[in-house]
């Protein structure tokens, strides 16, 4: 249990001791310093190592001033290249992310649009259903009856002969109020049909002349 605490001491020490070499390697990037260091690298102590490194730096500094310009030119093109690549990479990543986000957003929008379409389709279906119901013979018959209409009986026909002479076939007569429908038709409501059945005799001449011609005087249709 106590061991780890003690371990920490030397371990941290070794770490500090091993840290310098990488630092030297960073600073000793120039290839000129490397051959110097490599042969003696292992055997020397850390302090010696640092001293060597400092010496190498010192000796490099004046030398560097000369080829600096050339190197700058070389590194400039490399830097632009690297920057370009980085820009490309970053741009690519950003673009990919952006497109992916857009695609997802579009997917949700599409989903929403689909939902709207579905809703509208349902609405269309319902409206069509309503039209079909209103258009059905039972409801049309009921509505016609509510308006005071009655089914026509046997009509009389006018036949125009080849000589232009018109003959009347059949006897024209007013339509009769039919008995109320027997079969159970859903839209038919009994109260309106009942009131209509009562109305025509009383009001036939006054309020509803177009739908029910007066039953007392038979119109001379044949004339």
């Amino acid at each position, binding site marked *: 249990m106590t*061991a780890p605490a*003690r*371990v920490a001491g*030397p*371990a941290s020490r*070794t770490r500090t001791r091993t840290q310098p070499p990488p630092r030297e390697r960073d600073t000793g990037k120039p290839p000129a310093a490397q051959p110097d260091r490599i042969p003696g690298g292992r055997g020397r102590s850390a302090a010696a190592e640092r001293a060597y490194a400092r010496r190498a730096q010192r000796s490099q500094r004046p030398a560097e001033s000369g080829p600096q310009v050339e190197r700058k030119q070389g590194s400039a093109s490399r830097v632009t290249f690297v920057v370009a690549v980085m820009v490309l990479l970053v741009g690519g990543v950003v673009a990919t992310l952006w497109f992916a986000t857009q695609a*997802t957003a579009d*997917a*949700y929008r*599409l*989903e929403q649009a689909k939902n709207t379409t579905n*809703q509208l*389709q*349902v*609405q269309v*279906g*319902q409206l*069509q*259903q309503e039209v*079909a*119901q209103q*258009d*059905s*013979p*039972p409801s049309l*018959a009921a509505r016609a009856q509510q308006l005071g209409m009655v*089914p*026509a*009986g*046997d*009509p*009389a*026909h006018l*036949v125009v002969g080849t000589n232009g002479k018109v003959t009347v*076939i*059949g*006897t024209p007569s007013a339509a009769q109020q039919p*008995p109320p*429908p*027997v*079969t*159970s*038709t*859903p*839209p038919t409501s009994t109260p309106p049909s009942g009131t209509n059945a009562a109305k025509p005799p009383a009001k036939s001449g006054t309020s509803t002349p177009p739908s029910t011609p007066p039953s007392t005087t038979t119109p001379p249709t044949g004339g």
Partner: protein
Amino acid sequence: MVRPPAGGGPARRPSPQVRRTASAGRAAPARRPAPPPPPRPRPKRRWSVVGSNSKPRLMIGRLLMIIALIGTGLKLIDIQGLQAPELASKAEQQSLTPMIIPAQRGIITDRDGTELAFNVDIRALTAQPRTMRKNWNDPSVAAEHAGITYAQHTQTIADEMHRLIGNSLNEQQVLTELRSNASFVYLDRTADPAVAAQITSDFPEIGSEVRSEREYPDGSVAANVIGLANWRTDPGVTPGVHGVLGLESAMDKQLAGQPGREVANTEQGNDSVVIPNSQRVLQAAVPGEDVQLTIDSDLQYVVQQKLAQYVAKTGAKRGSAVVLDAHTGAVYALANDATFNPNNTSTITNTNVGDPAVTTPYEPGSVNKVVTAAAAIDEGLVTPTSVINVPTVFQNGDKTVRDDWIHPDWKMTVTGIFAKSSNIGTDELAKMVGPQRYDQMLAKMGIGQQTGIELPGESAGYVPPMNKWSGSTFGNLPIGQGLSMTVLQMAGMYQAIANNGVRLPPRIIKAVTKPDGTVVPTKQPAGVRVVSAKSAVTVRMMMRAVTQKAPFPQDATAPSAALPGYQISGKTGTGQQIDPSCGCYSHTKNTVTFAGILSADNPRFVVGVMLDAPNGDLEGGETAAPLFHDIASWLAQRYNLPVSNGSTPYMTLVAQA
């Protein structure tokens, strides 16, 4: 390993401490397998710990790494190679939810394209009361509910549902369901999608299932032909709308189509939340075929109405009527008095769901005399004006045949025999034809065989085979006793006469529209030549006398069938029904029929009507004939039929009374 010798003597106490420090300085994993380090000078030793000991440590580290790598590799091979298919399918099962793509059920239209049956989307509202109650009473969410009990909450739900759905919802039942301890209940199976969306957004614990419902906008119009389809979840069928009655049931395969399959990623534990863009269609749904009937829905409505009126008025047990196209045999209307509203299943009873017009045969009575008329004239045995001696009684085998009215020996024209419906005269003519030819004529008229109409449960009727005829059989058949037919077969006989001798088996399906839009018209069955065209015209013209209105004895049976402006050709029938109590023909119960052609000189429609046991001893001419007149009158107006060329001429029925 190291410690026992190290801790051996108290004298060497300090040294183990040092050594321990040194060993602790080395990497922990190296401690166990490492041999005791060789004694070295202290300052140097620190360095050599890293240097000289690194080799075994590296070795061990490498070994461990290699072992780990091999282990990982093996596991990788196991997972990726050996177990791969199994795991992949397991993963798919976990993430992919198989779903059924419902196929759109085909619509049913009438001959003009008016929709008679189509599907509408609805929602079934569901709930899981047990889970709901558990979640509601969960102490961790108690604060959110502000002291509202589960009972109060369900009351709120039921009230809101009732407010949105209306009176079609039984609120009390919803409450009972919600407060039950069931794991899953249906609250409403036929909710409007918009209303269902409102409810599920108000109460997320209420679920909504997509369903469709069959809608019949015309209600009971042609209900017995079309039948009924509803949402079915029986084992063996794909959940969806399937037919249970009539054509919906008979043509279910064609109408239903083929449902498709798809898989989709769904939210864990909730199949209804599909992750966008994750659907993959395995098999596309094939929509059902649309069926177009030959029925005219307006005419069908009128025929149903009038038939129901007449059945009510005459006190008949039941009635059937059919309207055929004279030239194609297409069924324009096929009605029964008892019908139901397919939108309201509570209107369905055992007696009103069938289609007796095709399923229930009856003994036709005199309407069957047309067979004798056609045979006698086609064989050239008589002409309409031939005069036959009609005695008061006629001995037929072991039975005495009488006419409906008592008359002395009369000399009647052939026209008169049919117009006045003389049983004796008909039997005399049949005797001239002979049983062989008579039997053949019955077969050609299609009696005793199914017409082959697309409706389910069609009856063939019954004609006794010739080898089973008794002495009186050949006297009974010509007057419509001892054999049976459906109203469709009855109309079919007159269709042959209307269509100049060629009988076309009736069909009720005009065309079927395939999912790709191709329209496949029903194949017209081959016609059956019953009589020559000339004979058919002769019979048709002769049968016009049935509506003749003249003083006795030149009066005919059905002047009430006459339609001003049109020459009607037809025949009444009053078939005595068999009385089960005595096993004889009843004198009070008749099957009253009329079959007629509109119009005789330019046939367009054939109408057959049948009333089962109307009140009293009403005959065909008094009940069925006026019904025929009403239907014919409406038909003439509906289809703008040209009036006949002149009215029916007067015909001599009785040459010498």
